[in-house]
């Protein structure tokens, strides 16, 4: 069996140039490695971070990174305006970025998928109602609503998740509805009806498993967007309240010192960029693999 798989991968790579072979696997492995590292650091932040994220030290304010003049190995990525170690804060920040975005995605996908399947399968007035709701959610300025929510509920971990989720389901609902409508007219759904299956059973057992691939692509593609949105909220000061570090708030912390201490904003900014980019790469790769219309045989 293992040999068979090996043969088929060989076949897949045959005819590719050496560079093509490397780049096609890079598209998967680099983003996967970055995500693996992110999850790892988020889980083991306590052990990995050299300092606590909230330990201030006024004499050591705005220390540059180790490789810059006056920098020291004690603070590899330097310190911020309060003398906190940037590396440690970035490591703890991974925890916030990851947990906020994953929870928000879990909520948006479940709500979006449920509503999308119901709308697509039931049709008629139910469909019209859910789709108008989706239209409203998509027309609403997301950041404005996020600010309103943060202001009225007070900033905090769950406020951020709530704000990110309240409109985010709409995109999923729309994609899933289209898929559900397509599947509703498929013969295997008719055959299940003939066997006496109820509408709920058909939605859960026959339609849902057939849209999972669309869902996986959606989830990976939106990890980046969610991390970005969380950073934007933290940057605006409506995210996780300090001193808990989040990459977005770290960028915000350094914005007044960009001329004297560029490292405060730059490193968390680079991290956001890398993670978002790998999320998008991973999503693209999965889409190429799972979407039959794009599958190359």
């Amino acid at each position, binding site marked *: 069996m293992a040999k068979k798989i090996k043969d088929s991968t060989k076949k897949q790579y045959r005819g590719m140039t050496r560079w093509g072979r490397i780049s096609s696997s890079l598209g998967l492995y680099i983003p996967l490695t970055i995500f693996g590292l992110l999850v790892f650091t988020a889980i083991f932040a306590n052990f990995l971070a050299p300092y606590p994220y909230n330990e201030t030290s006024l004499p050591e304010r705005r220390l540059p990174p180790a490789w810059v003049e006056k920098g020291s190995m004690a603070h590899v990525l330097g310190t911020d305006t309060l003398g906190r170690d940037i590396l440690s804060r970035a490591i703890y920040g991974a925890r916030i970025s990851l947990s906020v975005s994953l929870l928000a995605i879990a909520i948006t996908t479940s709500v979006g998928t449920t509503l999308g399947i119901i709308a697509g399968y039931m049709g008629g007035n139910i469909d019209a109602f859910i789709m108008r709701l989706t239209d409203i959610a998509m027309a609403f300025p997301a950041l404005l609503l996020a600010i309103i929510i943060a202001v009225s509920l007070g900033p905090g971990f769950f406020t951020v998740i709530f704000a990110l989720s309240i409109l985010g389901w709409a995109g999923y609902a729309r994609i899933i509805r289209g898929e559900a409508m397509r599947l509703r007219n498929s013969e*295997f759904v008719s*055959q299940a*009806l003939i*066997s*006496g299956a109820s509408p709920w059973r058909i939605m859960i057992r026959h339609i849902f498993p*057939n849209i999972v691939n669309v869902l996986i692509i959606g989830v990976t593609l939106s990890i980046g967007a969610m991390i970005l949105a969380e950073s934007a909220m933290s940057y605006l000061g409506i995210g996780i309240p300090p001193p808990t570090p989040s990459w977005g708030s770290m960028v915000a912390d350094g914005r007044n010192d960009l001329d004297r201490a560029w490292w405060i904003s730059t490193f968390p900014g680079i991290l956001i960029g890398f993670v978002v980019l790998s999320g998008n790469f991973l999503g693209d790769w999965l889409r190429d693999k799972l979407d039959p219309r794009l599958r190359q045989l």
Partner: protein
Amino acid sequence: MNNPVIQVEDLRTSFFTRIGEVKAVDGISFSVNEGETFGIVGESGCGKSVTGLSLLRLLPEPAGQIVGGKIILEGKNILELSKTQMRAYRGKIISMILQDPMSSLNPCYTIGDQIGESVKLHQDLPDNMVEPEVISSLRLLKIPAPEVRLKEFPFQLSGGMRQRVVGSIAMSCRPRVLIADEPTTALDATIQAQYLALFDDIQVKTNVALIFITHDFGVVSRICDRVGVMYAGKFVETAPTREIFKAPKHPYTVALISSVPRLDKKDERLFSIEGQPPSLLNLPPGCRFATRCSQVMAICKEQEPPEIKISENHSVYCWRVK
């Protein structure tokens, strides 16, 4: 033997569209006995498939609706049942095989799961009793090595094998009535013959009443005991198969039978019926076939022909026969 399982009386099904009411099935009556095969023959769009779906009450709602008549299944008019009650009938008492085996199986589940689902829907069985049921359904459709097959996914099977699996799903609860909507159309000729032979076998074993929908008179002669020829939503002639081939009475039936290609007649152009069936949106007053009929008379265009009984089982709706 003469025990009707399903009786259809004056069934009327319409589709309500933006441009008006389309009378897809306009008053058809027939009954099928235990172990009997009743064929519904007709050209595309004459209402055959809609009849099949009406019997299961699975029309695409809200557009398609049964507007009249009775469907009596085991002594009960199923048109009076609630949606939930009807669901309990589907699969258990009346079932159906669809046309295209390539798309009528869910690609996400093994065939064992799919047959098992239908078994579990109607029978309260402990989990370990489901598999024997599944295997016996697969055996009924003569699927070789059922113990192995039930762990396979639809994409691993050929078209003919998939259509047998669809048959196993439909027969999994041993229904009293089975509707087969052109089940052999998507199969090639050799597999077609095998598949038709299966129906004989299933009927011997389960005594199911079979309603066979087809456009192919060859298939009719092979499998049906009685036939109803359908045209524009109505039967024009119902008769035992033997009689309809020997002495077709309605000009449409005659025309249909003579458009079947034959091996024993050489170098002849295949017969075809000129023209198109009438629009079901606004039907002409008299006989529906009048515009294409070679033996049309004045009265045909004015009044609908009455039922004329040739013999106990043979009825024709034609002025010419009178």
